[in-house]
């Protein structure tokens, strides 16, 4: 049973994640009066990258080659800990919210090392910025998760979801509204969206994620891009499933799971729409203004915590 659910969730992660990226790109173009790439363009990109030759820097060591695998696997593992369609995540016993954050951090650690390895200044710059932004986003992320975990009485994501479906949970609880806002800002930072990073840019001095992976090509690049898409999917799932636990299947019957899947996709697309709106209506921030945004997220999370204290 567990094996089946692991395989199903893996398929869902792998299949759905490029779609979310594709939708965001397509809708963004529509909002800017462009035709934009088709929604399934990311799938074609991945297939193209996978079937291309690779060029590897002469300065690179085994860390450079190991990185895409570590990143891909750790992101998938994080994804398996997140309840997506069924309230019970397949491997929720192996780790909850803390392990989820830890696995994403492991992937990032190696991603940054992979940026430094080919001896290019761009890679170093990207790594430095990525680690800095992650460092200041982490307390806000953790504090927002703590707020929910304290209410749920567990850091286990399945338990958090079960608590969220319970009768005492109020959607418009001020603590949850504030924590949601904090997590949304963290989502923008962690997935490299405007106003923190611009996923569309290849302008050398402004890029963060793209700078780190500048030396990657072929199937390594495919793995990295896919990991980025999966990470975006699971972070969005964290946001929608914990704060809007509507329609998530508690029984493991095909009909319940199917309905739950529809709900899940709808909620994901709603968050993707919100990201598109933010990306279109904002300009990218200067690097040293990003901490202001993230400290705003931290303050929101602190306020969420304070209101947990006040209203309970």
């Amino acid at each position: 049973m567990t094996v089946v659910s692991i395989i199903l969730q893996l398929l869902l992660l792998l299949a759905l994640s490029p779609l979310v990226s594709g939708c965001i790109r397509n809708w963004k173009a529509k909002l800017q009066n462009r035709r934009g790439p088709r929604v399934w363009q990311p799938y074609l990109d991945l297939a193209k990258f996978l079937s291309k030759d690779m060029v590897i820097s002469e300065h690179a060591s085994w860390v450079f080659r190991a990185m895409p695998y570590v990143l891909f696997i750790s992101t998938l593992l994080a994804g398996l800990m997140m309840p997506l369609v069924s309230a019970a995540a397949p491997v929720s016993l192996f780790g909850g919210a803390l392990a989820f954050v830890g696995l994403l951090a492991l992937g990032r650690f190696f991603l940054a090392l992979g940026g430094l390895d080919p001896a290019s200044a761009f890679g170093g710059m990207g790594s430095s910025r990525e680690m800095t932004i992650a460092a200041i986003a982490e307390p806000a992320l953790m504090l927002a998760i703590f707020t929910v975990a304290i209410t749920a009485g567990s850091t286990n994501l399945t338990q958090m979801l079960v608590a969220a479906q319970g009768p005492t949970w109020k959607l418009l609880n001020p603590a949850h509204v504030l924590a949601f806002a904090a997590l949304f800002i963290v989502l923008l930072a962690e997935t490299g969206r405007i106003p923190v990073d611009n996923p569309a840019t290849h302008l050398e001095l402004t890029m963060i994620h793209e700078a780190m992976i500048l030396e990657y090509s072929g199937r390594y690049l495919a793995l990295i891009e896919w990991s980025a898409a999966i990470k975006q999917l699971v972070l969005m799932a964290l946001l929608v499933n914990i704060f809007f636990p509507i329609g998530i299947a508690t029984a493991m019957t095909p009909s319940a799971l199917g309905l739950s899947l529809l709900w899940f996709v709808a909620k994901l697309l709603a968050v993707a729409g919100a990201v598109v709106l933010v990306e279109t209506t904002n300009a990218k921030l200067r690097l040293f203004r990003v901490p202001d945004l993230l400290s705003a997220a931290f303050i929101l999370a602190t306020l969420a915590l304070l209101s947990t204290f006040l209203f309970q």
Partner: protein
Amino acid sequence: MELPSSAQLLQFALCAYAFGAVASLLALRHERAANAFGFGATTLASLCGVGAGLLGLAGGPAKAGASFELWPSLVPYLRLTVTLDALGSYFVLIVSLLALALSFYSFGYARGFYGRKNVGVLAAFYNALLLATTLVFTASNAFFFLIAWEVMALTAYCLVSFEHEKTEARNAGVLYFVMSHIGSGCLILGFLLLFQAAGSVTSDGYGFQTFHALGDRMSPGRRDAAFLLFLFGFGTKAGIVPLHIWLPEAHPVAPSNVSALLSGVLIKAGIYGLTRVLFDFLGTPPNWWGVTVLTVGTVSAVLGVLYALMQHDLKRLLAYHSIENIGIILMGLGAALMFLHTNHPVLASLALIAGLYHTINHAIFKALLFMGAGAVLHSTHTRDMEQMGGLIKRMPKTAVCFLIGAVAISALPPLNGFVSEWLTYQALLQGFGTTGSLVRLMFPLGGAMLALTGALAAACFVKAFGITFLAQPRSEQAAQAHEAAPTMVLGMGLLAAACVFLGLFPTAFLTLFDPITRQLTGQPLPAFLSRAGGLVLGNTQELGGTVSTLGMLLLGICLLPIPLVLWLFFGRGTRTWIGPTWDCGLRGLTPAMEYTATGFSKPIRMIFKALFRPRREVQREYDYSPYFAKTLRFESHIEEAFVTRIYRPLNRAILRLSRRMRALQAGSIQAYLIYIFITLLLLLIFAL
């Protein structure tokens, strides 16, 4: 055949350390013999020490407290009694484990000193330091403890200033000496308060058994005074902020095997002392003790890692990380004190376990990292990261060991740093429900700061590993580097394996904590800690959080076919080319174009500029336009706020006061006689 008891093993270990010290002094003129005897004795001694520690913990409460007299007493009141109780055994295990790995490492490392420095002296002090440290953890009365403490401080001083021809080492040694003795002074005062409260003058009156739960019989004022004195005294040794200033000076200048010992074990003596005093002696704590310790821990953790990020001296960077990790340990201990106050002994056990687990984890990965840094120093003759680079190709084994240490210290799964920080998070999060007062907000906020610390540590070790080992060599020495000697690699490999073991099998190791929690909080090991046959680590509640690092690793290995299948399916017939890194159309990249360690931490320096107050000077010489400079000079400094704001003014004030005092010391004997007479009179009046 009957196994030797823990006491016998300990006895043998102590003898072997003493033998090592004496033998290497006798072989002073024969450096090879000194190396073999000195570090050979350490190997034997530490093996016995590991055995003693394990037996002391696994033997259960019946065998705990094996006690014997080390030497027949020559002086009344002074009995050199050694007791191996649960807490002591645990720290003996830590020190012996590190000593074992380090003695292998030292065989190779000490060869670098042949013909330059006296290896015999190094080995002698090294053994003496280990002997004293083991005695600190096992001494069973206050007098003996303080003597061992002092010997430990003095031998450490000698090792810090081992390379005394360098001004840097001499200054660091003196600073360490002064700070260490201020700390010792506080400890003596603290023990005097305890001694007074115990109220007996028999030779057992200062034994640790009589101090047990003594705090409940003390007046609150004295108890608080004792708490503060011990926090100050042990905190100086542990390197908490703001008493840490000696640590980043003293640890880097010592030989690397000693640095590993100083950062791995010696500062843990402070943790041992605090645990012993706070949980064993001072009774049920008032709330503000726990709050203080938790705050001090949080501040140390965050400031330690922030200062570490600014360093580009590899060993100094590691030394600052020790401050950070001591902070994390104290967060666990502080939370445990708060839980004891609110009478939640099970949670207190969890928090205590988190702190103590991080103690051994930090000892192991920090020693591993210092050994790696030592191997790099040995082969490139520099500690400056800006001179390194590309070492992963020249020192592949060292690089792998250093990477394991870096992942572990950054608290990333599946290694040991992650497990102990996970336990700390669990303790902090459950703490929210223990009290209704506003104080409970400290727990999640402390957790958030722990998250910040972890993420900054990851940034710092991307820098430390990336700049040192990856990319192109930045200097001739780095390009000429060679792999460390096999014994050095063996030592590092041993600790790397320990990191992996403690990361993957935490539930197996945690069973050793049962006697410790019974001794200190009166609770057996919390239920639900080990689930699914030991595969999964849980917290104290049935539906609480769970984690399984081993499960993650195994599942990750099962997922590995996915990218390989994708490769087979799509990428058949593709080729891999080796080409130059993209150089924007220039004629090849030079090492000067790589990102530097200083550059890497620049965003952090800018974000926290209120703390660092960075200052930079740029001098350009040019003919036509500043954009085409002929020479360029760049300097960047940060302010060490504690040194410039607290210690320097304090230092100046002391000097000023001393100058005033000089007037009293006129050099005339009559004046001195008068002073003595007046003092005597005053004392008599006071006595009346």
